[in-house]
Structures are given as structure tokens and as C-alpha cells.
């Protein structure tokens, strides 16, 4: 009897905990899949010292209407603080409440409207915006490269594709506004007080769509 009790207490004796299973993995997991969600989009490789494997973002410049801003805009950027009259009047710069960039030319290259300018003065394209954001938000950038920050596009296996910084955060107004939830949950009382009539009705309804 006692023996039986001991062995049953040890129930999952040969079953390892999940951390042990992870630590004892020998075979590396490798696939070269690129998920369907991004197959038709061109991908741009992420370049950073923290990147230790293949990492991509989607090519966004091809989706900007009338990209190659400097094809028409040849004059240098004037040092405005926010909206210009007539052009880009919808942009309200509210990044960091005084401690963040408060002028257009802090991030945008003054002499090249198609490029951004990092803190070190290097000109980068819009697809490499993570290098600019990461100059100040380095903690988030390292987390993003590793996967703890931001979102994966498409697949959990294979070549990883991430949303770029500007895909989620509006660089001019990065704060997320308040909104209503997508749905609600029923209070438990409702379920308990469903009348027997309703239950009978729902069980008589055969499994036909309506």
C-alpha cells in the first residue's frame, strides 16, 4: 500500500520540467522559411552589432507615395518646430514632451529630404529608421532585435521579419491614444442565470448556421 502511494506521488517521475527540456536540447532548430505574409513584399536586412542571425524588416520606402522627396524638394529644410503652413500641416510634433526632438531637422537630414540623420550625423534611409530611434532608445532597440519588444510579421519559424519602429510608433506623436476595447466579457451572473427556457431552446437548435 505504502509503496503504491510513493510511486503514485511521483506521478510524472520520468517527465522533465520545461526548463530541463530546453536545456537538454541538442539538435539545433533551423528552417529557411519565409512566411507567406511577407512573400510578396521585399525585405530589407537589419544591420546592427546586436544582430546574431538573419533579421529583416519590410521595405517601406516603396510604399511611400511620391517617395524620393529630394527629387522635387531641393531647398534645405527650414528649422521649423512643427507644422509648416500649406505642407505637412497635419504633423504635430509631440515627441517626448520637451526632452525629445522638438525640431524637424533633428531627425530629418536638412539637405536631403529623402534621408534621416542619426545623432552621429550619418545619413540613413527610411528603412533603417531603427538606427535613428535606437540612438536614444537603445534599450528598446536591443530588445527589438532580440524579440522582446515589437512585433513579428508572419511566422514564428524561419527568417524573422519584424515590424519596423515607425510601423507601430508614429515618430511625430509616438504615444498610443486611449481607445475602447474590441469586445467585452460577460459577468458570470449572466451565464448562471440563463433561464432553462433559453438552454432548452439552444439545445433544440440543430447545428445549422443561420
Amino acid at each position, binding site marked *: 500500500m505504502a509503496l503504491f502511494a510513493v510511486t503514485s506521488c511521483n506521478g510524472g517521475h520520468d517527465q522533465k520540467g520545461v526548463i530541463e527540456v530546453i536545456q537538454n536540447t541538442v539538435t539545433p532548430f533551423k528552417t529557411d522559411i519565409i512566411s507567406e505574409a511577407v512573400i510578396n513584399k521585399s525585405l530589407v536586412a537589419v544591420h546592427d552589432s546586436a544582430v546574431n542571425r538573419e533579421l529583416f524588416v519590410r521595405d517601406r520606402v516603396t510604399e511611400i507615395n511620391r517617395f524620393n522627396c529630394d527629387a522635387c524638394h531641393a531647398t534645405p529644410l527650414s528649422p521649423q518646430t512643427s507644422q509648416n503652413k500649406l505642407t505637412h500641416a497635419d504633423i504635430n510634433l509631440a515627441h517626448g514632451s520637451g526632452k525629445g526632438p522638438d525640431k524637424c531637422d533633428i531627425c530629418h537630414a536638412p539637405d536631403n529630404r529623402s534621408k534621416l540623420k542619426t545623432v552621429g550625423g550619418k545619413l540613413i534611409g527610411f528603412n533603417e529608421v531603427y538606427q535613428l530611434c535606437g540612438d536614444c532608445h537603445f534599450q528598446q532597440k536591443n530588445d527589438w532585435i532580440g524579440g522582446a519588444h515589437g512585433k513579428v510579421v508572419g511566422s*514564428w*519559424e*524561419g527568417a524573422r521579419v519584424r515590424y519596423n519602429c515607425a510601423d507601430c510608433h508614429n515618430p511625430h506623436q509616438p504615444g498610443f491614444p486611449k481607445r475602447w476595447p474590441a*469586445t467585452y466579457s460577460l459577468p458570470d451572473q449572466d451565464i448562471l442565470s*440563463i433561464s432553462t427556457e433559453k438552454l432548452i431552446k439552444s439545445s433544440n437548435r440543430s447545428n445549422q448556421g443561420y
Partner: protein
Amino acid sequence: MTEKTANRRGFLKTSIASAAAASALIASGCQNRQLPDGGSEIALRWKEYFKKNYRLMTDQEKRETVDRLEKLAKLDQKINISIATNSPKQNVLFGYAFNITRCEGYMDCVEACVQENNLDRASKTQYVRVFEMENGELDISSGNGKYYHEVPKEDHFYMAIQCFHCENAPCVKACPTKATWKEEDGIVVVDYDWCIGCRYCMAACPYWGRRFNWGEPSIPRDKINPNQHYLGNRIRKKGQMEKCTFCVQRTRDGKLPACAEACPTGARIFGNLLDSNSEIRFVLANKKVFRLKEELGTDPKFWYFMD
């Protein structure tokens, strides 16, 4: 003497068999409609009634039951569905991480799950539940799971729970008919047709992960998701247990589960725990993660962390 025994046995056999058939038909409410290929509905329901537990089926039997289910769906709901029976991928153990700082209580995950997994709209069944907790609270049962106002609320944070797919799942141990088990890729699944509806698993689960169909589920025909998996989002019946399956119909195809795909703030991280380069492994290695009710020893594969 032997002749009498044989007659009595034979009589009992046929009468029990026909009573069983009749009750099965009455229970399924079928009218023996004819199928387009000439078969009869009674034959389909008869075979469905007597099929085996999914784990004991051969590949041929799996194909046959999928075929029957697809035909019955065409008869009942007048829709074309496709039920997959993908096996787990090699070298995969699914894990999930939830970033409490990023969740703003939008409940996009809850709604996406309902639509992806063909959940009952009448009783508003939801696999994922989001709790609104006051800053400083640690116990999830002190949270409010039924909020409906603009989010995020001042001085509150949000946490979501769903089935955690425990490595040492109490629900698997509690099931008297072995209708629920843990697959090789770590997903705890339910064979809905094998479930007898005793709800022992619901009592055993410490995380409110399980849902029971008290009534016949109803989904508007145009909202039914036709891409189904036998162990996943195929349509359940009254008296069957169900729960989050990490969207087995999506994840075994390489896609993210619907909740992770829907989250607009990137609070949900899903991946393969055996892939040392995955996002979930990065979180486990670099963030202060914790699991709910660790002291129960259920070994859940769902971690929470804060930035």
C-alpha cells in the same frame, strides 16, 4: 436448449444495436438526407458515432473521419470547410510570453481568438480573458475581468490569461476517458468527440483555462472559419469541453496564433522554446519572467514579464 440461447442472444444483439442506432440518430437530430454523391446521412452519423479516439486512429481512419465531417458540415451548415490533421513538427515545443507593461487592455486578442476558433457567439465564450488590475496587485483573482470602458485606465494594468499548456497539466491527469492529452509540440489538445462532458478537467485547471458548452454552440454562417484542424477549431457540440489550442491550425503551418497576430502593441510573444534564436528564448534569458501559481508545479509554458 442451445437453439433457444442462440435465438435469445441474437434477438438481444439486434434489438440493442437498433436501439443504439435509433438513439444516436435521434440525438443527432438527422433526417437521413441524401448526399450529392449518393451516400446517406445515417451511414455517416453511424460511423462518426462509433469512431475511435484520435490517438488510436490510423492515417486512413483520420482521412475518413475528416471526409465525413466535411460532408456533414456541407449538409448541416451548407458551407465548405477543410479539416487538417497536421502532426506536430519535429523539434518544436511552443512557448508564450506576455509583456504586462505593453498590454493596454484593448482585447483585440480576445476578439481575434473568437473569430479564428469558431467560438459560440450565443454564450460569448472566450478562450482569452483580460483582467484589469490595480497597480500593486499581484493576485489575478483581484482583477476585474468584465470591464468595458476606455482603456488604459489610470493606475491600472492589464493581464491576460488563457490555457497555459502546462507541461505537467492537471487537466490531462484528471480526464477519466483520456480525451485530453499533451501533444509532442507541447500543445494540450482535446478530442472533442471523445469527451463525455464530466468537467473534471475544468475543476482541475487552476487557471480557468477550460470552457464547457452548456448549450448548442451557434455561429453565424458567414463568420465560420473554414480552415479547421481536427484538434483545433472545428465546430464543437453541446456537452463538449474546449479551450485555447495555441491555434493548432495556424501554428503547425508556421503562422502565429490569432491572439499574437492581433495584438497591436506587441505584448504577446510566441515561438519555439527549442530554437535558441527565438524571441521567446530571448525573453526567458533577458527578462524577469514569472508564471502564475508556480507553487502548484503545473509547469505552464506561458510566462509574464515587465519591461
